[in-house]
């Protein structure tokens, strides 16, 4: 069902934990739906110098979080903004169709943390103004056809 990469990131997730006094924190998902991702960012001079996560969710949610942290670490804010759910899924060598929403969650967690940073720091981030985080719809996004 899952690729080896997914299993590796699930069993040995990178960057688990919290960052005290994080510059940006993003939490997405909903316990009702069975997944919550919380992402902590440390940002210095526009560069994401550290990132941690905590996730309540299925294997691919945990793996997606882990992979997302790897993808953003050391990147500039603008680079991090380019990371899509597809990029997360591809970096994991793919996710089953019913699990694609986990990668969407990871993408949103990054953006929400960046939004939080933007609000706290007053640094404007292009493309973040009108993002909505609609938890309930997430699972529907990549439904299989029949």
């Amino acid at each position, binding site marked *: 069902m899952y690729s080896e990469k997914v299993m590796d990131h*699930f069993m040995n997730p990178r960057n688990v934990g919290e960052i005290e006094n994080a510059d940006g924190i993003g939490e997405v998902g909903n316990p009702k739906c069975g997944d919550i991702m919380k992402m902590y960012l440390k940002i210095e001079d526009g560069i994401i110098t550290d990132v941690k996560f905590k996730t309540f*969710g299925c294997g691919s949610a945990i793996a997606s979080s882990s992979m997302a942290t790897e993808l953003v670490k050391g990147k500039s804010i603008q680079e991090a903004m380019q990371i899509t759910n597809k990029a997360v899924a591809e970096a994991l060598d793919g996710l089953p169709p019913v699990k694609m929403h986990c990668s969407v969650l990871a993408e949103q967690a990054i953006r929400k943390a960046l939004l939080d940073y933007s609000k706290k720091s007053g640094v404007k981030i292009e493309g973040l103004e009108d993002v909505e985080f609609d938890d309930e719809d997430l699972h529907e996004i990549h439904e299989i056809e029949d």
Partner: protein
Amino acid sequence: MDKIIYMDHAATTPVSKEVLDEMLPYFCEYYGNPSSIYYLSNYSKIAIDKARERVAKAINADKNEIYFTAGGSESDNWAIKGIASKFEDKGRHIITSKIEHHAVLHACEYLEKKGYKITYLDVDEYGMISLEELEKSITEETILISIMFANNEIGTIEPVKEIGAIARKHNVLFHTDAVQAVGSLPIDVKEMNIDLLSMSAHKLYGPKGVGALYVKKGIKIDPLIHGGAQERNKRAGTENVAGIVGLGKAIELAYSNLEENTEKITKLRDYLIDSIQKKIPDVRLNGHPTNRLPGNVNMCFKYIEGESLLLSLDMHKIAASSGSACTSGSLDPSHVLLAIGLPHEIAHGSLRLSLGKDNTKEEIDFVVEKLATIVDRLRQMSPLYEKAQEGK
């Protein structure tokens, strides 16, 4: 431990060697079509007859009351749609419960779309229906009550005999999905006033893709599968001879060893529940504490999600299952866990370990040990756990 530790017997079971041995000649050797008249076909005819007798005996039915099907889902669909179709002019109301298997629920929902009225009875925190509520919901229009014998997720055993008595009193037919019960619990269709009963071979060490429906003598039902005259004109299709032989053998074995297995498995079950409760905090046993299937353990582990638990167990070659939505990719967790009143986030953290005749105490010790580590690891990762700890 190199061997897999299989604790998902409620999902399916391996075919017993003895069962397979009885099936084998019916593939290449005694392959005659039971409907043919030449000598070769006698073997298949006699084999089916013997299986029918064995199945009948196991539930105290008559040989002619057993109809072979392709499994539990077909039996459920046939019972419900077949009665609905036959009695559409008498009434279009069916009573079932909120914790039925999807084979029953989705068949009922289909009928709802076709204009039938369905009552879905609530259950209490243990998963038991209320007999009072059942009786109150019977109307002039009611043609069928379909309540499962024992629940596949939480193991709760419903008051089947009492339901049968109420059905009889009001002259309504009573179907029970006994897929989880057959082979694990004593069943007497006569004493329990059961009119229709579904079973499936692969839950009792028989092959997948074969089951049976018991239909009490005299009860009229429309076929679900029309065609040839097989199964006394009630279920068409060339018989799955080997599969039927397998069901017959498996059910005979199950009932000849019933007491012994029940005692052994119940003990293991209680030991497993006990060990988990001792070793792991913040757990909850789902289902009835005593009135449950011998092999069923269903527990919620707060703050973590079921699929991640399953995956971790799988890394230790432990096979189990979960009522988490994430195993199916849907939003909502198990309808059964919601029906017994669990909040979504708790229901997402459920684990079902269903024991079989070959599980051992050593396996249980191993599983509990691994489980404790896994639960701890996942909780350390969980933002819900973090919040809960802060709150304390």
